């Protein structure tokens, strides 16, 4: 085993044993699930998030109460009769009921019903009540006006607008509740790359600064070249990152392929194993670019605080796709999205978003990848030069401009 691989192996083991690594490995799929699957789950069955509700009813005749009770039965809402408002309010206050509904005496012609609630935020219950009351009162009014409620319902129903997405590969129409699903998946993918690249970048930067401040670097350099030290770190942590993505892809495949269909989870169309693999590639690209930059500024930084200051421009570049995620997803072929998908500091994430929403022509993907690889090559070379100079410098806070000039030595 050569020295580069020895350093890489050591860094891999140290990183994979790190608490942050374990936490992020677990949080990753949870975040992905929470952002992509959960909204679908909530939309399809709101009661997933809510138990049975009990509503105290004051006033109204027997017919109204029975009709209301039966129409609310399948919405998991029970009605309880209360003699007067005071006792109803007390039931709400004591937690015996979720809320209290006051039925006006002339309920057929009433403009408003009143609902007393402890929090006012039981949106699902309130919606169900509103629907049920409307469903009773309006047909009653139509009948008294001599109209057929069924006929009126049919005549006033608006035609639905069905949104279909033209799939570029098969040319077939794919049913689409798409924008939200794509937005959620896009946000979660972007977040994952942002989190991991930032985490590993800063880990590398910090590890270099710590070796510098603890003077370990002197011993390291008496055994290995600065290049081996830097690439060993990048490679070792990169492999730890890839291991993490491999775990995520495996978990993702399990959820999409096995657990999803069995548990009938609403897995969005954009969350596919193929996209997860693209995600891993985007990570590799972004990781090598940012980690070599972090290694360079880590070698030049005087302490962790200084490293933090020097890394602001990097964090800003990393955040750009996150800031503009909405316009990019709404219009993935706009000039702006196009630019960000070629600009190497943002291209891994933005190209991934474009691929997920509307696969661009292959040449665009190839060009974006080529620009990224070329930039990585240049960045790595610059970083190695800066690293060689910076790693032996201490006691002074150099500015970013001074540090970049070291690359000329």
């Amino acid at each position, binding site marked *: 085993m050569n020295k580069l691989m*020895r350093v890489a192996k050591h860094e891999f083991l140290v990183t994979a044993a790190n608490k942050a690594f374990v936490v992020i490995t677990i949080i990753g799929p949870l975040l992905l699930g929470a952002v992509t699957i959960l909204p679908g789950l909530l939309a399809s069955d709101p009661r997933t998030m809510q138990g049975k509700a009990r509503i105290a009813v004051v006033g109204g005749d027997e017919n109204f109460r029975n009709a209301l009770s039966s129409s609310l039965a399948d919405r998991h809402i029970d009605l309880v009769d209360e003699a007067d408002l005071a006792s109803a309010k007390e039931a709400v206050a004591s937690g015996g009921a979720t809320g209290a509904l006051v039925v006006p005496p002339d309920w057929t012609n009433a403009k408003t019903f009143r609902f007393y609630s402890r929090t006012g935020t039981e949106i699902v219950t309130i919606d169900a009540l509103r629907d049920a009351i409307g469903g009773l009162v309006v047909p009653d009014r139509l009948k008294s006006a001599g109209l057929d409620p069924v006929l009126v319902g049919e005549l006033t129903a608006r035609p639905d607008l069905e949104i279909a997405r033209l799939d570029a590969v098969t040319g077939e129409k794919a049913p689409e509740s798409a924008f939200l699903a794509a937005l959620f998946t896009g946000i979660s993918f972007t977040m994952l790359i942002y989190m991991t690249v930032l985490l590993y970048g800063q880990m590398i930067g910090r590890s270099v600064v710590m070796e510098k401040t*603890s*003077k370990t670097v*002197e*011993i390291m*350099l*008496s*055994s*290995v070249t600065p290049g081996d030290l830097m690439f060993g770190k990048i490679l070792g942590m990169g492999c730890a990152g890839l291991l993490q993505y491999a775990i995520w892809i495996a978990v993702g495949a399990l959820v999409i392929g096995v657990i999803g269909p069995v548990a009938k989870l609403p897995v969005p169309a954009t969350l596919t194993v193929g996209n997860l693999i693209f995600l891993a590639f985007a990570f590799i690209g972004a990781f090598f670019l940012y980690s070599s930059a972090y290694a360079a500024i880590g070698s030049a930084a005087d302490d962790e605080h200084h490293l933090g200051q020097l890394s602001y421009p990097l964090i800003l570049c990393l955040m750009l796709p996150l800031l503009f995620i909405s316009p990019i997803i709404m219009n993935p072929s706009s000039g702006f999205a196009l630019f960000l998908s070629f600009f190497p500091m943002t291209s891994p994430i933005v190209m991934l978003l474009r691929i997920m929403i509307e696969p661009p022509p292959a040449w665009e993907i190839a060009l974006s990848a080529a620009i990224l690889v070329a930039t990585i090559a240049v960045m790595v070379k610059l970083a190695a030069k800066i690293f060689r100079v910076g790693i032996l410098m201490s006691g002074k806070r150099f500015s970013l401009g001074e540090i970049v000039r070291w690359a000329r030595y």
Partner: protein
Amino acid sequence: MVEVKNVSKSFQSITAVSDLSFSATGGEIFGLIGPNGAGKSTTIRMIMNILAPDSGTIFYSGTRMTEADKDRIGYLPEERGLPKKLVLMDALTYFASLKGAEGPVVRRRIEGLLERFGLAAWKKRKILELSKGMAQKAQFILAIAHDPDILVFDEPFSGLDPVSSDLMLEVILELGRAGKTILFSTHVMEQAERICSRILLIDRGREVVSGSIPEVKGKYGKRSVLLEFEGDGDFIARLPCVSRAVAYPSQVEAELADGFQADDLLRAVLGRVSVSRFELMQPSLHKIFVDLVGASGEVSGE
């Protein structure tokens, strides 16, 4: 064997090392001596191939140094530092592996050294739990764990208690007897005088004097006299034949003024005090160091 030939190194406008040459052979303990900032560490970093010289060449066993030669050197840097979060044994085996030394033999060697330095009970502990003295010893073990031919010790004894310091000295002398080339840098002259077979004194990156300890002392002659006496010896320091003196109640270390001999001093004191010991002394390395370097005002404490 390590040979440094006409090596120079500058940082921007500062010349750190200028046209320096010396060589150290197997079995010898070679002292690189000089005040702080003299260029010792820069020289050592060039020997370690951490810095490249601007001009000049460094040879290992007669051939130009390459990156691969790093495996043959053990290095104890002046500024100590170990990865604090690693377990002691893991750190030692990792650093040995970076020198190409792996396997059970290396592990046994490391365990033997830990035992010898009283760190055996700490091998499973993290380095941050070690006391400063323990960490020093651990770093020394790290330098010699891969059994290198050439050892570079930069201020090895600084901050050690006498017992640990003696133990380390014992091991260093053993390594010398085993034929290793040992390069030893210090600004503590008493240590250099006790340990080194040859020295090179540098100041501001240049050679001031070099050679074996007797040679160096010989160059600066026997111009000091140790005088033990009974009686009031206050006048001795003021004698015209004495240029400088360190006076104690019954003892004086006197340096003879130019143009005077030891006899002149003896004649001057006879009859005024009762002399019990009169000895021509070689100056200590410390004194030579202060005389040669002190004038430049560059000597400073640690």
